[in-house]
């Protein structure tokens, strides 16, 4: 991988401050995400990983600081411009967040139907292709979310996030609640799609195996800001009690061994 200076940041966060009432979640947080990388965000419970994700995608508003996506300051945009940018990213929520009254295929077609004028036949074909792409069986398209298992719901959620061929994908704990086999398969799927489609992936996770398996770079949230970013090697040698504990704890060692094998 080339040095950071030469790469183009696709998301760039500067001096971010978020708070709920008097509780400050982030303060003076800086973070860059580069095109084509898989960035994993880790941190203890309550350090605001999901809040950071929600702030970038605009579900939560920051108190201070700027967030630039595709080199545009999100807060300075007209709503039409903002919607245009929102179409260039896809979000997978923790439990898929599929619309329960629509079938899986209809869920995937929602963004296409709302934002684009495409012939119905083409939308159906694209939906069927995305369903296959995320590894769901063809008959999953006609099923309702309540008829799917947790892992299948996540895959369907990923298919919906990918419906408009976004450049950035935000994943909130993609492997949480999956069994280890399902989690590894989901990791592999993300990596595969990321390479095939040239995605930039912003990944919030607790899963050390995911970090080892697919992340190019890791950012650690602690003390209200990003204390370090870098690859796994840098994480392992970084001198901070939480980082040491996290990556060298029993689970961290197990994940490292699994990676080495």
């Amino acid at each position, binding site marked *: 991988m080339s040095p950071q200076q030469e790469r183009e940041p696709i998301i760039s966060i500067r001096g971010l401050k978020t708070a709920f009432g008097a509780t400050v979640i982030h303060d003076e947080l800086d973070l860059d995400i580069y095109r084509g990388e898989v960035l994993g965000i880790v941190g203890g419970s309550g350090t605001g990983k999901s809040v950071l994700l929600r702030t970038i995608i605009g579900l939560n508003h920051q108190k201070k600081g700027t967030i630039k996506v595709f080199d545009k300051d999100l807060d300075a945009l007209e709503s039409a411009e903002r919607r245009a940018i929102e179409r260039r990213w896809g979000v997978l929520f923790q439990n898929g967040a599929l619309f329960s009254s629509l079938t899986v295929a209809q869920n995937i077609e929602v963004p296409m139907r709302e934002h684009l004028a495409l012939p119905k036949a083409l939308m159906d074909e694209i939906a069927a292709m995305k369903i296959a792409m995320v590894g769901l069986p063809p008959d999953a398209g006609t099923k*309702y979310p309540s008829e799917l298992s947790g892992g299948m719901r996540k895959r369907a959620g990923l298919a919906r996030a990918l419906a408009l061929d976004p450049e950035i994908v935000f994943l909130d704990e993609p492997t949480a609640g999956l069994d280890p086999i399902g989690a590894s398969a989901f990791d592999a799927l993300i990596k595969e799609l990321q390479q095939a489609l040239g995605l930039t992936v912003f990944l919030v996770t607790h899963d050390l195996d995911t970090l080892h398996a697919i992340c190019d770079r890791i950012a650690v949230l602690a003390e209200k800001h990003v204390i370090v970013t870098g690859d796994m090697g840098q994480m392992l040698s970084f001198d901070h009690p939480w980082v040491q504990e996290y990556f060298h704890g029993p689970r961290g060692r197990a994940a490292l061994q699994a990676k080495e094998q």
Partner: protein
Amino acid sequence: MTQTGEFASLKFSDTPEGARAEIQGRWVIAGLAEADTALRQWRPSGKPAVALDLAALERLDTAGAWVLHRTRKTLRAEGLQVEYINVQPDHTALLARVEANDAPGSVEPRQSNIVVVVLAEIGETMADAVNEARALLGFLGLLMATLGRTIANPRRLRGTPLVYHLEAVGFNAVPIVALISFLIGVVLAYQGATQLRQFGAEIFTVELVAISVLREIGILLTAIIIAGRSGSAFTAQIGSMKLNEEIDAMRTLALDPMEMLVLPRVLALIIALPMLGFIADIMGLLGGAVMCWVVLDITPALYLQRLNEWVPLAHFWVGMIKAPFFALMIGLVGCFEGLQVKGSAESVGQLTTKAVVESIFMVIVVDAIFSIYFAVIGF
């Protein structure tokens, strides 16, 4: 097609080797509609060798790649030899990935014959109704057994939740119950006065208001308000506890949900509803008194005197005696539906609606039974 920029464009031509489509511009999902239609209608003539020339392709995403793949597939199915030519290295992986994920699929849920669906639904609804009635009866029995155990051993009664629910379903409902029954008293008196005046029988307005409020309306209205207010709350509370596996947790800790959750709620309702009914009676009579005074010049003193002389106390007792039974129905249905919740939050919403409708229905059925009974015994 000649647009460039945001849109996918293409140019058809005939070469000595065969028909050719030059794929140009940005083949991304946003601008595909026209190119898709054009390619669907494309019927290359001449030699069987057809080429899709990708040399001038600026951008490609999965949707664009799909359209190319589908075109090649359909034309091949028609017996033509279709090939991509001049594929740029950037696009090979994407084209291969899309080709690998060509799977048949449909969008709408499967639908069967409408007659069959309607018949099946009628049958299902009937079967459900019977099963539900049986289950509700069983639940009543279970509640009675729990009540019996609690009476035999009063220390088992949960005091704190009982008092909490008394406040929630009783005390907190006083303002709305009082206001609505006052207004109903006003409406009854006004309507009665207008109609009875035609016969010069205005003075009977007092009896009209008093008998209808005391016998039926006071308590029925209260029961309906409480079914909407507390029956629904019971379903939602117990339902979300069920979703959160709290009920299962109770069972594993050898706690009886009937004793912990259902009994305090039902008992609180049975205690609170007669009190609320009493308040509704008083407020209804008060509303009637105010209206009689304003419209008919019947002074409060005269109103009270007429009440005393012409409205026997039996009417009050007829109303009051129904209250605990209404309360039992509301509490029973509310808690029962709460325990039926499974799956998703959506089911909490559905069952809450069902609980309200069902408990109001049950209240009116019980009221009808009482009316017939009182008519037969001449009370």
